[in-house]
């Protein structure tokens, strides 16, 4: 999370977007801890022509998600919490990809452009 904040600042994100990025890393990281136990987060500095941004990839080898449609809809949680993590991240980021194979793991990739 601190890494993400540092990278976001270096890329020159404004404070509001820096907070979105930090919050995203926190949400996805917490999901791993909660549902998959182990996994990793990688951050990348993206440059596309004049555009600059950050890519956040989160991969785990946990139980996977049965129904992705449900998982990314508001207030759906199998953990008894608010169920707003994934849909919230989707709203905060510019690009949101999620793939999951039940029984073998989950990958979430998001991008925020400056």
């Amino acid at each position, binding site marked *: *999370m601190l890494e993400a904040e540092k990278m976001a600042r270096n890329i020159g994100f404004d404070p*509001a977007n820096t*907070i979105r990025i*930090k*919050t995203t890393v926190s949400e996805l990281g*917490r999901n791993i801890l909660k549902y998959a136990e182990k996994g990793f987060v990688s951050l990348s500095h993206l440059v596309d022509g004049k555009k600059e941004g950050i890519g956040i990839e989160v991969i785990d080898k946990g139980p996977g998600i049965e129904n992705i449609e449900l998982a990314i809809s508001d207030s759906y949680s199998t953990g008894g919490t608010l169920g707003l*993590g994934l849909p*919230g991240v989707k709203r905060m980021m510019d690009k949101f990809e999620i793939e999951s194979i039940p029984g073998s793991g989950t990958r979430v990739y998001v991008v925020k452009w400056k």
Partner: protein
Amino acid sequence: MYGHSHYNQRSPEELLKLFSLDETDLESIRKLQAPLEERLDELVDNWYQWLKNLPEHEEFFTDPKLLEHVQKMQIKFWKIFFKAEVNDDFINMRKRMGETHARIGLPMDSFFAGVDHWLSLFIDMMGELKLKPEEYSQTRRAINKFLHMDMTIIVLSYEQLINETIAAQSKSLMEMSTPVTQIWNGILLLPVVGIIDSKRAQDIMNATLAKISETQARSFILDISGVAVVDTAVANHLIKITKATRLMGCESTISGVSPAIAQTIVELGIDVGTIKTTSNMKDALASAFNKMGLEINEIHE
């Protein structure tokens, strides 16, 4: 969880089995009882001669009364040791020894070295006894196993006491890190700094509710300007805390909600319902005073 420890005390039988000590072993140790008692004073002298060369000697044995006491205990212990009876009393006695070591901060390395020196004294003694070669090696092996078992009991209880101490310290650290303070009659304030995880949230909840019941406070200000990140989990905890305080008749205000945080809360889709929030602590304070029928004014001379 505090005071958690993985140490499950083994029963005497389990300990004997763990170190493969059988009745033959114990019997061969018992055979040394009589020769040991004859020489024990001498051995103790010899052992303290050895100890004098260690720096620990200065630290732990400068008081002659204490030294005398420790020597007496040691003589008593070795007599019991060579009775080779492993029962609850024996185990408890050794556990207390380990706790004492932990309390006085005796370093493990000197403890091990000390035991090793005793072992070499016993081996020397066995050399004088003219045992048959098989008997000699059998007895030697038995003493080895028995001493290792004994050290295990001591080390585990040492470790347990240290763990308990650490747990107690982290508990008091937690209490220091959630300083719910009564800043005025009926008004509580808690500035939270750092990361809020479930455990921290629970600590905050406990500390706050206890303080409310103690002070009958009507307003609680929870300042989150120092919180690292407000994600759905943190928001969920905050909502629960405010609900619980409300049930106790105390209205919570979350202060320190910056514009950027407010935006992310909205984007996450969190329904803050009727929770009062303010951007700075000043507004939260003013409203709490207001509720008490108080007003803050500048003094004009």
